[in-house]
């Protein structure tokens, strides 16, 4: 154990003994009542689970009540908390209503998430509860984002990330601790060490005796305290909250505790915990510990304690009744719960100007103008600040808008993307650069399970206005881990918007639209286009509607749907074939999801033949989806099988000739066109 943590621990023990002196009666009563409320809620939920009224599963907080009560008693309504699968207690302590919680557990329309979330996703944005979370450790990156949002707005809200001992072995714990320390974020890491991650003892799976000692590696204060003593928790957290509000950065507090039940209410697992250990902890029931202290100091009259119990029972009866009488949600609510509406923009058209700039300059101009227009827009990523990004997309932004709004990040993709998600939820409009899009694989949980689902899990209320942008694709000899085209992954995930511009004009207008959109947008910039010719781009600020394709060239014999870097190649192929009297229509979807089916289908119904070209692998690519849609909806118009042109089935080779062989060429597009005409 580090000296710092040992000292702090000793200090906190002293605080624990003297604790009652420092709390006034209303504070003690609050702590006690909150614990009782959580206990009773969990007991009732367990009954309902066994009756089959609460389904799936739920994770009981019984035995750990002192932590939620002690932590949240220090928080203001506008402070943020983020939680994990064992989250009922945190919500109750932060002030959530039992009836709406109960309705959610029963999957009802009146629940906090309209029945779309269930136990593992309960949240209330009005109370700044960012929600329970089904993915171990995910609360931490999200919390860095909420904390960053209050820092950027010069507010003094603090954010508390709750997590278990198991989560301290996830990479995002370490990344988040580092980020919070480097940026002095106003937050608390509260580790509820109940000593077992499902059935695995933390002593067998964690490199340190106490998790708080890990704080030293990040120059963050770390303390281990008695998590079954609500007063001790309250006092230690009070200091940490004050510290965070003063702008002095994060604190890691490890609360030693024990859960009474199994991992989940399903309770179908063999018990790994030794009997004597179990019994010793049950004897230290946090409510009994509190009652003993109250009794000793006569802090709350016996009569009042009895009343508290009665009030909770009345509330719970009403909550169960409310849930059971509430209607089930209907499927009609689902689409709007997945996506916030997209704005409708009028675009000026590329022909409206003669000024020509490059693809990169167009992106850069969009960022400059949007940051100038809206204070909530900020940017972060690796080397995006003084360097301006390795492809210079953010050039000059730091000079103009400062280091707070243009932030260089540590190399921690999962966490800075999660930070973006949290900041977006908390009201900012982050633009996050992934230096090379292949690195996005490290952030998939934050994109798939967090960004894409957040609105839905919370019943369709919150918005996540986030842009994740960066270069993808090959063509500059960067080989297998710096050259992939990955749009199909994102297009398969409901909740994400996927944009892939092919011209400087589209790049600017679509990036502006992406920043203003209230959904998480994956914005893909093909590297081959960075190298392309300048094109006309209006100087004024404009946005192109998401989900609207552009017919880049009209024709009548065959339709080519081409995306991103394949658009210039398809146009070149069309030019070549025109000399032979073959008339090719080139449609660029511009947005991969939502896809403008209407424009594609109208074109195919005119030409009766379709070739799809993209730089990504053919197998499982977006071309498969487009082919399926066309076949389903224009079957009787098709005169030939649809052809797909995509990368060959191998990672990107380094060798120049092999790289050119892998990426679809103009010749391959020509060949495919001839194929469908033949």
């Amino acid at each position, binding site marked *: 154990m580090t000296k710092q943590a040992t000292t702090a621990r000793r200090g906190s023990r002293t605080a624990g003994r003297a604790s009652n002196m420092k709390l006034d009666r209303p504070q003690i009563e609050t702590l006690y009542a909150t614990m009782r409320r959580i206990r009773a809620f969990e007991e009732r939920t367990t009954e309902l689970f066994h009756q089959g009224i609460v*389904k*799936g599963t739920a994770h009981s907080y019984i035995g750990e009540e002192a932590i939620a009560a002690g932590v949240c008693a220090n928080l203001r309504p506008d402070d943020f908390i983020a939680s994990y699968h064992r989250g009922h207690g945190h919500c109750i302590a932060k002030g959530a209503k039992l009836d709406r919680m109960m309705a959610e557990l029963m*999957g*009802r329309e009146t629940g906090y998430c309209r*029945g779309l979330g269930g*136990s*593992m996703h309960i949240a209330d944005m009005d109370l700044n509860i960012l929600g329970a979370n*089904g*993915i171990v*450790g995910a609360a931490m990156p999200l919390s860095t984002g909420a904390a960053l949002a209050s820092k950027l707005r010069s507010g003094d809200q603090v954010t508390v990330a709750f997590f278990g001992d198991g*989560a301290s*072995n*996830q990479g*995002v714990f370490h990344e988040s601790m580092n980020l919070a320390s480097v940026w002095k974020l106003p937050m608390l890491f509260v580790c509820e060490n109940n000593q077992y991650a499902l*059935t*695995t003892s933390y002593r*067998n*799976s*964690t490199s340190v005796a106490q998790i708080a000692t890990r704080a030293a590696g990040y120059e963050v204060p770390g303390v281990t305290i008695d998590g079954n003593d609500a007063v001790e928790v309250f006092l230690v957290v009070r200091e940490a909250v004050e510290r965070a509000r003063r702008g002095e950065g994060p604190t890691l507090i490890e609360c030693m505790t024990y859960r009474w039940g199994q991992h989940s209410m399903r309770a179908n*697992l063999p018990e*790994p915990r030794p009997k004597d250990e179990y019994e010793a902890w049950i004897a230290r029931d946090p409510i009994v510990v509190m009652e003993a202290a109250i009794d000793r100091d006569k802090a709350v009259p016996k009569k009042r304690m009895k009343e508290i119990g009665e009030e909770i029972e009345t509330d719970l009866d009403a909550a169960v009744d409310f849930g059971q009488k509430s209607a089930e949600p*209907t*499927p009609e609510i*689902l689409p709007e719960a*997945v996506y916030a509406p997209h704005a409708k923009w009028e675009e000026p058209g590329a022909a409206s100007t003669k000024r020509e700039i490059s693809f990169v300059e167009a992106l850069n101009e969009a960022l400059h103008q949007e940051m100038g227009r809206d204070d909530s827009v900020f940017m972060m990523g690796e080397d995006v600040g003084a360097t301006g990004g390795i492809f210079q997309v953010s050039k000059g932004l730091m000079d103009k808008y400062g280091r707070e709004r243009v932030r260089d990040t540590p190399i921690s993709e*999962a966490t800075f993307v999660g930070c973006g998600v949290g900041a977006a939820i908390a009201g900012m409009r982050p633009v996050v650069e992934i230096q090379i899009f292949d*690195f996005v*694989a490290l952030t*998939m949980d934050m994109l798939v*399970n967090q960004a*894409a*689902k957040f609105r*839905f899990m919370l019943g369709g209320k919150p918005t996540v206005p986030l842009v994740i942008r960066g270069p993808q694709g090959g063509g500059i000899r960067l080989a*297998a*881990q710096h050259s992939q085209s990955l749009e*199909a992954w994102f297009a*398969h*995930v*409901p*909740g994400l918007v996927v944009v892939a511009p092919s011209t400087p004009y589209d790049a600017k207008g679509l990036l502006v639209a992406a920043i203003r959109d209230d959904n998480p947008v994956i914005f893909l910039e093909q590297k081959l286009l960075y190298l392309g010719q300048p094109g006309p781009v209006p100087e004024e600020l404009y946005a192109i509607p998401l989900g609207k394709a552009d017919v880049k060239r009209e024709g009548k014999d065959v339709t080519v749907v081409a995306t991103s870097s394949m658009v210039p190649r398809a146009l070149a192929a069309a030019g070549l074939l025109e000399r032979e009297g073959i008339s090719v229509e080139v449609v660029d979807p511009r947005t991969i*999801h939502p896809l403008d089916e209407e424009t594609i289908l109208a074109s195919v119904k005119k030409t009766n033949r379709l070739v799809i070209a993209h730089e990504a*692998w053919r*197998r*499982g*690519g*977006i071309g*498969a*989806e487009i*082919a*399926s849609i066309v*076949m*389903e909806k224009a*079957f009787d118009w*098709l005169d030939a*099988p*649809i052809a*797909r042109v995509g990368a060959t*089935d*191998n*990672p990107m080779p380094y060798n120049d000739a092999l790289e050119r062989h892998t990426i679809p060429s103009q010749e391959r597009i020509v060949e495919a066109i001839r194929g469908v005409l033949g």
Partner: protein
Amino acid sequence: MARMTMIEAIQNAHDLAMERDRTVVAFGQDVGFFGGVFRCTAGLQKKYGKERCFDTPISELGIIGAAVGMAAYGLKPCVEIQFADYMYPAYDQIVSEAARLRYRSAGEFTCPLVVRMPTGGGIYGGQTHSQSPEALFAHVTGLKTVVPSTPADARGLLLSSIEDPDPVIFLEPKRLYNGPFDGHHDRPVVSWKKHDLGEVEPGYHPVPLGKAAIRRPGSALTVLAYGTMVHVALAAAEETGVDAEVIDLRTLLPLDLDTIVESVRKTGRCVIVHEATLTCGYGAELAALVQKNCFYSLEAPVVRVTGWDTPYPHAQEWDYFPGPTRVGRAMTQVLES
């Protein structure tokens, strides 16, 4: 002939492989002492010791990363991700490392690794315990993707996956662990132990990767399905009386295109069923391949029946799930169009 649940069959595959080959190791969260949350590795630690079957910290990225290194240096790790939904923190290790190792080293290193994970919904698991992410793997060159639908296949395909010299993603439909669930969630599921499809021949019998199985021969239309949806499709065929040929793909990659093409050229109609979301799902690839290879035999558009394009909803679980009613309706529709 013995009958086993799919859980027992998977456990048995581990046992057979570990007994036969000392380089096979199994690990993951709660896999060792406890035998896995679904009990697929029960008893292995006791039999083979803590060196060959062990618990890991909650660190999916670490689990896969360590397994890639072990595989490169001669072991055959068979690792469990507790729920498929938890694989995202490890996604980079799967797609950038495991899938690339052979290619990047020009064959000098291989990655004989199996990543097992329970998939699919139907247990009120909500958005983060119900996903079917197969399309995210099937798009990645260098990986193989397997989805069994019976205990015998689960065992046989897992044995082949462990033997395979390349990384295999082994997706276990969790609704099939105990019985052939056909989508009628309001009826009790017959246990594999009381079902003919639960029969598993004792001994070491690998089932080859890349070979589909025709679960029901028919002439009116072809149904392409895998995992849970095989049983849903069989139920739908019986309930509608449509003479459907039900093909169980068993492995998505490598795909047995020949069996599919032969069937669709015969029937002229095709319905594709999966539980994953529609857009850019594996059904899109199948539909694109079918129209490409059977264009002149198709008498109706290929239809996809899938989960909705939403996260898995907690409350409307059974509306999201493409059950026998929806599949049956699609069959009738394809016959009428």
